[in-house]
């Protein structure tokens, strides 16, 4: 663990109980329950329209629950209140401000919190260095490739040193090579930071490769199943070719398919 005040606080635990979200009378998420451990990496997969993103947004406080509850806990399991610094978001579209340089985009969360110019630019610079984005600080987002933009978005999400990182199909729009490279990077960052990570993805491979556990939301709206633990000998290139990896993916696939057969 890094000797850094924020990292030492550890990741947030999340307790989701019977979470239900309705939009105009129809369920977007029905009865989702899951307990996410502090520092854990949880992937969420499910049919489109199953409520993956809805669950993620509810955890992040972007949506109000119709019923049920979501609580946060610290490493010791005690309930805690979360502030805007505690949660980092990463969206598929990146959502960078096109009129700001890369550095100013990464510094935005600190700026909105009132951190002074020097301090926040230093923090942004440090984060950019860690994301191997040196040399593009003064470029505009439109001058970057899709993969680079995503890395800038990740740097922005991490600049407040969040205890919970929520990722909504972050690499869904990227090509396969870039995606694999960013997956590996994300894995390293997640371990380094000690933050709890929740990833929504439509790729079973990506879900299994990154996660400690995979949560399947089955059906429409999705009903949460017991999370499937993932154990892989390694998560590098060899790991992706291993028999264990294939069988774990198949297990998640079966869990998903069981739902669609019942629906059909």
């Amino acid at each position: 663990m890094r000797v850094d005040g924020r990292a030492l606080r550890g990741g947030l635990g999340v307790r989701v109980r019977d979470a239900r979200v309705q939009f105009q009378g129809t369920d977007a998420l029905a009865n989702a329950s899951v307990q996410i451990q502090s520092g854990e990496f949880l992937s969420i997969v499910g049919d489109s329209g199953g409520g993956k993103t809805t669950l993620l947004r509810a955890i992040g406080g972007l949506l109000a629950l119709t019923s049920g509850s979501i609580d946060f806990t610290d490493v010791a399991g005690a309930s805690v209140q979360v502030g805007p610094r505690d949660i980092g978001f990463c969206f598929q579209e990146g959502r960078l401000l096109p009129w700001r340089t890369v550095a100013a985009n990464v510094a935005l969360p600190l700026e909105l919190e009132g951190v002074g110019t020097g301090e926040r630019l230093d923090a942004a610079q440090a984060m950019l260095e860690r994301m191997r984005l040196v040399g593009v600080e003064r470029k505009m987002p439109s001058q970057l490739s899709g993969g680079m933009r995503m890395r800038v978005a990740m740097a922005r999400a991490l600049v407040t040193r969040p205890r919970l990182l929520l990722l909504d199909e972050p690499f869904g729009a990227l090509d396969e090579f870039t995606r694999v490279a960013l997956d590996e990077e994300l894995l390293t960052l997640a371990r380094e930071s000690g933050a709890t990570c929740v990833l929504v993805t439509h790729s079973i491979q990506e879900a299994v490769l990154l996660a400690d556990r995979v949560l399947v939301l089955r059906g429409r709206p999705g009903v949460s199943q017991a999370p499937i633990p993932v154990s892989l000998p390694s998560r590098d290139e060899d790991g992706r070719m291993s028999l264990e990896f294939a069988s774990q993916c198949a297990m998640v696939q079966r869990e998903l398919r069981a739902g669609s057969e019942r629906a059909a």
Partner: protein
Amino acid sequence: MKRSLLVAMPPLLVLVIVLLLWEGVVAAWKLPAYLLPSPSAVARACWEERARLGAGTLQTLMASVGGFGLAALIGVVAGSALGSSRVLQRGFYPLALLFQMVPLVAIAPLLVIWLGYGLRSTLAAAAIVAVFPVLASTLDGMRGTDAGLREIFGIYRAGRWARWWKLELPSAVPSIVTGCRVAAGLAVIGAVVGEFVSGYAGDQAPLGIVITASMREARTDLVFAAVALSACVGFLLFGIVSGLGWLLLRRWHASAVQEN
């Protein structure tokens, strides 16, 4: 350089041809100068009356630039206010739309009553016609702010002021620039129409007064000269506004980046 020459050449060529035809028609039909002066006669009038025309152009330029500046400021501020409050928008925007329909010539006498003859009235007239496009484009631009970006600002609990200054206003800049380009042309129209009603005669008379006075004296060549100069004021203002807009947008917006 080569490309800009390529862009400028065809319209310049057309202009020269039109002027030559015009000169030819006036000479061939022996049209009287009070009806249609030849381009060369207009050019001569320009030179001979350069002191009067120069002073007039300066007056009209001041009224246009001042009126435009005022309109841009009021338009952005009022548009932002309407854009940040649904209540204000519902109450004021329909009225602003209606107010825009009131013909300027009809208000100009009122401006004289309130502000007196001279620059203050013409400046106000220019501002009144130019303000609406800026206001509407500011409001439109703010409402078009990307929902995803709004959410980012929500996540970090940005205050109202930060939302406006750091998100909505920059989002609206491309739209505001377009509105300002329209407003630049309108400001000159407003200024000249204002001058018809509220301009001072004399050696500092603005172009609007030069036009009406020359019309009465049957100095059609001078009318043409003054019209051409007021058009130049319009081109100048439009050019400045477009240039400033390009400077603001060149680093990030497609409309400016593509021109690079």
